[in-house]
């Protein structure tokens, strides 16, 4: 989720057209500020606009995209370095139209396409919160320099004409108040579609495939439609609420990557009524695959407890790594100490089972590979969940190379997960580098004459497929 929400409020090549309008010295009632805080939480602004270990909303998080590193910006009310001089109209345009105070266009990594559904009243509350509820931090925005032609922000004007929604969502009178509230939050502030909806040729969300699953950098945001096989149609409303509140559903799924951050910073803090409303709406979203209706195993009920220890014990580590059972030995060495020698997890589900787990039985292996390479982290009221990474981080429990991760992943897929999938070392390398890349930059440069659409697609791509983890991690560890 976070990956999509990068918002470039400050451009490195600032063509400042006019001085920012000075905001009116305005006082807002405390309950309005509080309402704004809740909406900003639901919108998860903090996840992207806060550097690791940095001050809230002060920006500075490095976000690696396939075409360069983007730095998130300071959205505290600092008049010098933040958005303290924004009028409410300027704030509203930035949040809902993707246009910042100086008139420059934002890239849609900031999910203004979703926030565009938010009401005037809610944006008013958010403005009150950002002006009065956030502590101003003097922190200059770090330079973002994307390569040509990525730096042509004006191209977004055309994209917005084609794809931007310009009106807040109005209730559907045929649906319940709960459903309408749920749709308003899910499609607006919580911006589920930003990650979970596949994109078209110009990186616009494909409305017909709403929430049916999409790749987000190294992670795959799975199908969360009501499809009973490919989606979460087999979950009850209570189960989805539990997942959003705690980040896990024992024996089925757990949140990692950007979803782990969304649970940590956003969903767990929403009211039960709002979580129920979101669940009601999400579980009504129709399947994108009506033909595949309701047969076959879901990603939540595949695999079984099993091990290959008898085949490798006593032969020594080096031999174990050479043979056919290297995946089993890597599992024993690195995974079994928490997840159990049979992949069974713990009785309380704190350490999830490797079978009956959406991470190992998805429609592709991205989340399995990403979990191994990047680990899992989220914080909720019930504690700080942390699975260490096995990539090239300094705190990786063991730094597994691509061949080793592939062996491990194939061992897990065979018995515990989606046995139809196999993983190659190359697949692991792609996830290690932050997810599938596009050669669209090169194509765009060659085909500049071919028209603006390529540029347009390229710009959308760059911001819509940012890879957050690696740049952030490297920076934090530098």
């Amino acid at each position: 989720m976070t990956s999509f929400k990068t918002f470039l409020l400050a451009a490195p090549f600032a063509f400042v057209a006019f001085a920012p309008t000075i905001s009116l010295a305005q006082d807002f009632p405390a309950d309005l500020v509080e309402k704004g805080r809740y909406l900003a939480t639901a919108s998860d602004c903090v996840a992207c606009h806060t550097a690791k270990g940095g001050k809230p909303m002060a920006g500075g998080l490095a976000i690696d995209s396939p075409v360069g590193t983007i730095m998130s910006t300071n959205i505290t009310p600092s008049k010098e370095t933040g958005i303290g001089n924004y009028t409410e109209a300027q704030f509203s345009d930035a949040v809902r139209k993707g246009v910042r105070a100086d008139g420059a266009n934002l890239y849609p990594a900031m999910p203004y396409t979703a926030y565009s559904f938010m009401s005037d009243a809610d944006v008013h509350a958010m403005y009150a919160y950002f002006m009065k509820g956030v502590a101003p931090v003097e922190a200059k925005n770090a330079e973002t320099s994307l390569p040509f032609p990525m730096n042509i922000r004006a191209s977004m004007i055309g994209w917005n004409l084609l794809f931007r929604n310009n009106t807040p969502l109005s209730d559907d009178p045929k649906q319940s108040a709960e459903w309408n509230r749920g749709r308003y939050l899910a499609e607006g502030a919580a911006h589920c579609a930003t990650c979970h909806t596949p994109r078209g040729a110009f990186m616009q969300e494909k409305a017909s495939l709403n929430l049916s699953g999409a790749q987000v950098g190294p992670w795959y945001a799975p199908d969360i439609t009501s499809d009973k096989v490919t989606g979460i149609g087999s979950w009850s409303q209570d189960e989805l609420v539990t997942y959003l509140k705690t980040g896990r559903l024992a024996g089925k799924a757990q949140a990692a990557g950007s979803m782990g951050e969304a649970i940590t910073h956003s969903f767990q803090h929403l009211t039960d009524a709002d979580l129920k409303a979101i669940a009601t709406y999400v579980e009504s979203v129709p399947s994108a695959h009506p033909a595949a209706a309701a047969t076959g195993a879901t990603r939540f009920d595949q695999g079984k407890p099993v091990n290959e220890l008898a085949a490798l014990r006593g032969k020594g580590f080096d031999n174990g790594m050479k043979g056919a059972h290297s995946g089993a030995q890597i599992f024993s060495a690195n995974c079994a100490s928490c997840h159990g020698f049979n992949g069974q997890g713990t009785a309380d589900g704190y350490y999830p089972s490797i079978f009956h787990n959406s991470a190992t039985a998805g429609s592709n292996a991205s989340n399995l590979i990403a979990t191994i390479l990047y680990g899992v982290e989220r914080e909720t009221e019930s504690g700080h969940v942390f699975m260490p990474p096995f990539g090239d981080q300094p705190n990786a429990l063991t730094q597994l190379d691509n061949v080793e991760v592939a062996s491990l992943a194939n061992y897990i897929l065979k018995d515990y997960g989606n046995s139809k999938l196999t993983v190659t070392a190359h697949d692991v390398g792609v996830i290690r580098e932050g997810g599938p890349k596009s050669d669209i930059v090169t194509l765009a440069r060659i085909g500049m004459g071919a028209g603006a659409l390529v540029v347009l697609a390229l710009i959308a791509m760059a911001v819509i497929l940012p890879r957050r983890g690696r740049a952030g991690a490297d920076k934090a560890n530098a």
Partner: protein
Amino acid sequence: MVTKTSADVIVVGTGVVGVVIAEQLIDAGHSVLMIEAGPRVTRAEVVENWRNAPLGVKGDTSVAYPPRPWAPHPTGADKPEDAYLQFTGPDPYDQTFIRYAGGSTWHWAGTSWRLTPEDMRLHSLYGVGRDWAFDYDTLEPYYVRTEHKLGISGPSDRALQWPQTGARSAPYLMPSFPFSPGEQKFTEVVKTLGYTNIPVAQARNSGMPYDGRPACCANNNCVPVCPVAAKYDAETSLGRLERKGVTLLVDSVVYKVETNAQNKIEAVHFYDQHKESHRITGKLFVLACNGLENPKLLLMSANDRNPNGVANSSDQVGRNMMDHPARTLTVTTKEPFWSGLGPVVNSGIMETSQGAFRSEHAGAYFRYNNFARNRFVTFAALKKGLVGKALDEEIRRMTACTADIVAAHEVLPDPNNRLTLSAKKDWLGLPKPSIHYDVGEYVRKSAETYSLPIGKQIAAAMGAIDVKITPKFSNSKHIMGGTIMGKDASNSVVDVDCRAHDHENLFIPGGGAMASTACGNSTITMTALAIKAADAIVAQMRGA
């Protein structure tokens, strides 16, 4: 291949003492080069070495860490005449340590008892041993920094903290671990005798991640290796140190410390695994090999200016070798106790280490070992000729109904307990360490009149139907004393900052500097001394 041959600071050894100092120095802007005798291995390999080992050899933790030929360390497999450590005294000095990158914290239990103020003033208060060159209050801030550096969990209840007589200036970072069923029962039993079994402060993540390491998930495998790095070990720092710019040479055995005309350290020399010699120069040198390898290296480095060995004008290098001599009571009870849930060492009675009796004999710390017992009792069950279900049931019964109570004693510094260079050579042709060791009357008297009587009393209160006491003192693998600290350069090796009295640019921090042992494990004090030394080094480098 050696690509770098010089740095501001050269650190020999990559255990906890070496890495703590190296990190502080690189953070202060100095270039650091670390030299490790042994190999660098992955945690995965160590874990699988252990899991692949048959039960019969698991009494020897070194099976998870097979020594390289050029960097021998003690193993259980060697005959005494072939062993790396040679003994000449009445008692063995049978230590376990490993020469691997990351050092012996790979297989420590994580136990982190502080010294008490009294532990540091044995001579003033009880007329035995030595006083430390500074007091507890001087050491206390370094304990706090150690607790933060290593991630030490412990009780928040002041009444359950150790020491009771010395202040704590900061709380523990994480809560103490819950007691296993056996520990709970043991705690109740000893309470009836007037003793308080308190939670061990331990370098292990309790219920939360810390410093990029996960929470303990209770594998009960702390010794010989924490499979998930929830327990601090120095290996967990190595990747971070390298990212910060520390150069790490492994499989490189330092065998000589070279002095110059001003009798400062000029260089160290090491053999690589092909027996080729290399010379590494620097401005300042830190020997962080451990309390046994440090004195060996200093003695091996004897030259014309330092005929008794480097840093040895006092003739105290290699003397005062200390440990925590232990006696173990294996208790069989009628009712099940069940140890094994949680960390392998998780609680202890420390109050028995203190008292006016210390003018007469050693104090003792009683530890209910929380190792799962099945590993230890299986052979006894097999010897009974049982098979099938009967065998399973007997293993289960003995796992539940046996327990080890360990009485660990303090030992006094005695110059006759001495490490020298053996005539026997290792694979590289370097002399093996030879140790003359006698636990002494102070310890023997404690066992006879104090610790074993208390141990038997505890065993009886536990409802013991059988008690077996180890006939001899065993070693606790806590190497202390060989480069002892003191203010007087004529009878000590290092000063209050672990700087060699004889060489201003040589630091020898760690357990070797400890002037008393007390009864608790030594690592936290070694590390506190390392941080104190690092402060002094940073100040000294600034002035340089």
